[in-house]
């Protein structure tokens, strides 16, 4: 009747030959949709939500300022700090930072520089106001409070 011995009658296992293909597809998706993180963010960033969000127009004209408590409190303390481009700075050094960022742009684009402020929800308005004052002095008046979509009143 049958020429196949019983030992060969195991249920056929699922072929895993397509597994690397699936993983490569996922990989390509991530390669295409993400950006390499340029700076390690050294402060806590739990950004409060907001509903009236507008997109930042030209990514090349945006500079980031991070404000929050340092992640490494033993090294840097627990007072909220200002971080730009991998270093902590004081509010007085902001105009210098603005100049550096403006010099990276061409002459006619300099006025359109936008400062994206990524501020932790527990940072106090004292330090935020200092940052804004220094930005006004440096004539970087276009700012954007970075946020994710959500409601703050819930």
């Amino acid at each position, binding site marked *: 009747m049958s020429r196949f011995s019983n030992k060969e009658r195991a249920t056929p296992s699922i072929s*895993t030959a397509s597994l690397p293909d699936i993983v490569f597809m996922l990989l390509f998706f991530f390669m295409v949709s*993400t950006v390499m993180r340029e700076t390690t963010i050294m402060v806590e960033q739990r950004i409060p939500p*907001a509903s009236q969000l507008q997109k930042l127009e030209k990514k090349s004209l945006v500079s980031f300022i991070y404000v929050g408590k340092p992640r490494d409190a033993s090294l840097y303390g627990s007072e909220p700090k200002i971080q730009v481009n991998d270093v902590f700075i004081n509010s007085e050094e902001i105009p210098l930072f603005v100049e550096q960022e403006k010099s990276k742009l061409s002459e006619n684009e300099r006025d359109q520089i936008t400062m994206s402020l990524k501020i932790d*929800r*527990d940072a106090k308005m*004292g330090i935020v106001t200092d940052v804004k004052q220094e930005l006004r002095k440096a004539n970087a008046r276009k700012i954007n409070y970075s946020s994710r979509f959500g409601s703050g009143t819930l």
Partner: protein
Amino acid sequence: MNASSMADIAFLLLIFFLVTTTIASDKGLPMLLPPYNEDVPPELKKAEHNVFAVLINSRNELLVEKEPMELSAIREAAKVFLSNNGANEELSDNPQEAVVSLKGDRGTSYSTYLTVLDELTAAYNELRAEYLGITVEQYLSLDKSDPEQERAYKAARAAYPYQLSEAEPTDIGGN
């Protein structure tokens, strides 16, 4: 050919990318700061009923037009103030005269400030969207490069000009 090592290599690369990249999502509340002036700005002579005063103290409590108020009530109150058009004598004469003044304390937490700013901006955006007869989402995604949409956008802005003035924060509460 054994495909298990291919899968391992692919997983390794995937994990590398997951760890070193971020999905950039840059949206937020835009604002234009007033120019910096060394001299103390002159006291603007504005009739009190045309000013919607919002104060936040260091305990994140709100005082709107001298009355305590919950965060959830600001949007409606601001809309009523802005669209008053002289109906109630204690509120604005018209949206062009109406000014919203926001004053916090140095000890106010940023999340309260941002929520207040969000609610006030929402009040303006909702009134502008109603004026144009569209929804708020449609208003926020108006394409300014299209001349007709830009005209609508400018008309809405003229009808309800964004006049929000931020004062120096007080330094009463402890940080």
